[in-house]
């Protein structure tokens, strides 16, 4: 009997592909964000409003994951940006291989922003790196305030939480302050934006956040270019 030390990640193969995607997006200065939330949290609606509000000339594209149907891609394609549906046929999350194969003939050089809508699920997508710059978790006011305590993994890994559907607050027994406290108790530095894709409330703050992150990526890329010259 021999014992072989195999100190590496179980999802080593996924992480290897994700690293390749990250490197490609680094070279093209493309900011990529991975949106994760429960089914019905309002991910697609949030991205629709985002696409509508992007400053003219922004070069954006969307990958949207679902177990079945092209419905989300059809919704998202109405705003004039390239959109591709990833149908996982059973898998409860996107993985790096799926993202890589759906990016394959897109000109990343011509993209400033890649939005990835994961399969509706707060557990499994957390484990799979897609080569993104950051994860955004979407929690709607139609859910429980304690979701961050029940599903701490994603709230720890996300840099931003969108508290969505705030237009429903007058009609549902939801304590927004408590939800934010729950999120901060598992991730003290998480940024939080309260937003409604119906009314547009909070989207000013979100678009500022997005612009800042896109600029950050450009500056990093310029620094990198200067450093290697």
């Amino acid at each position, binding site marked *: *009997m021999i014992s*072989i*030390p195999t100190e*590496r*990640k179980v999802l080593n193969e996924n992480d290897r592909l994700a690293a390749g995607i990250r490197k490609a997006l680094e070279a093209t200065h493309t900011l990529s964000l991975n949106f994760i939330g429960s089914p019905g949290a309002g991910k697609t609606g949030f991205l629709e409003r985002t696409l509508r509000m992007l400053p003219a000339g922004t070069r954006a594209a969307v990958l949207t994951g679902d177990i079945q149907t092209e419905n989300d891609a059809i919704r998202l394609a109405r705003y004039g940006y390239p959109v591709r549906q990833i149908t996982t046929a059973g898998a*409860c999350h996107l993985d790096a291989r799926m993202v890589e194969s759906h990016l394959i003939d897109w000109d990343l050089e011509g993209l400033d922003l890649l939005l990835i809508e994961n399969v509706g699920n707060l*557990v*499994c997508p957390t484990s799979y790196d897609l080569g993104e710059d950051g994860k955004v978790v979407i929690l709607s006011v139609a859910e429980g305030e304690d979701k961050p305590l029940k599903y701490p*993994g*994603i709230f720890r890994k996300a840099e931003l939480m969108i508290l969505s559907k705030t237009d429903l607050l007058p009609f549902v027994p939801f304590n927004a302050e408590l939800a934010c406290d729950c999120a901060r108790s598992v991730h003290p530095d998480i940024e939080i934006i309260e937003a409604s894709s119906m009314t547009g409330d909070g989207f000013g703050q979100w678009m500022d956040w997005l612009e800042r992150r896109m600029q950050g990526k450009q500056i990093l890329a310029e620094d990198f270019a200067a450093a290697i010259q």
Partner: protein
Amino acid sequence: MHEMGIASSILEAVQKELLRYPGYRAAKVDVRIGAYAGVDAESLRFCFDAIVKDSPQAPLELAIEPGTGDELDFSSMEFEEVNA
């Protein structure tokens, strides 16, 4: 929920590692799973046993140790000589 995918990744990694040790078969694989890994140990064990049962690697033991944070790592694999 995605434990079947994780189980497949573990079995594939064992099969890949075995290629480097001709004449050996795998007896045991050790993984470490942190509390925030989002992986349920019992469910992983169930999935792993189900896919190993019908594979050339059967019987193969999965040992699960508690890890830290969102750790989901291999720690070691044990191989034994065939017909030794």
